[in-house]
């Protein structure tokens, strides 16, 4: 692996279940924009894409987030190499 430039911190983002269908994609590699440090920041960044993004991730929608496969909060930090998943409230069992 070659050393990464600090300005191109990459995270892997997953969209699951209904969110995957609404957004039309299952995952993406994303270069963390300057200033995005936590879950709330990433969600805000994604909403700024507009269209279905702003709807599906609107603050009023029940969206859950996991960082590195642990349930996360708005304030959970996001760092290079993290896996961040957005999904609806779970309905298993």
């Amino acid at each position, binding site marked *: 692996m070659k050393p990464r430039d600090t300005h191109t911190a990459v995270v892997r983002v*997953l969209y*699951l*279940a*209904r969110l995957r269908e609404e957004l039309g994609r299952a995952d993406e590699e994303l270069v963390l924009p300057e200033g995005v440090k936590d879950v709330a920041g990433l969600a805000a960044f994604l909403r700024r894409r507009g269209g279905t993004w702003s709807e599906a991730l609107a603050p009023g929608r*029940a969206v859950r987030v*996991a960082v590195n*496969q*642990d*349930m996360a909060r708005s304030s959970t930090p996001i760092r290079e190499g993290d896996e961040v*998943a957005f*999904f*609806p*409230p*779970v*309905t*298993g*069992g």
Partner: protein
Amino acid sequence: MAVRVQTEDFDAGREIERLRHGNPKVGAVASFVGVVRDLNEGDAVSELTLEHYPGMTEKALEEIVAEARSRWDIYDALVIHRVGTMKPADQIVLVVVTSAHRGEAFRACEFLMDYLKTRAPFWKKERTGAGSRWVEARASDEAAADRWS
């Protein structure tokens, strides 16, 4: 102690036998089987598909089982959750808990179901006469899980 996420069906009776096998201190085995119903929210359901988040699912279930072990004096616990497409009357989930006395076994078994329902990354999509739809999370499930905190 084990968690399994699989497409295949399971044999509840055999799993109950196996979980207590070899431990003569077990006096109580509580278990729960969740089944696909042919009706939800008043609509006939012909098919149910369970999606999950591979990797996180097993981890979440193992954490829930570890939490149950830390709260109650149980010997062992098993969670099997199916994914993929199922029909009404098919088994979805199995939870089995062994302990010396029944109180702990019942508590831990119900706790595992309540937490699994609200914290493990599974999603149900059902097919009805009007097409396919994602099942909505139920406030009653959140309330059930909140009882334990």
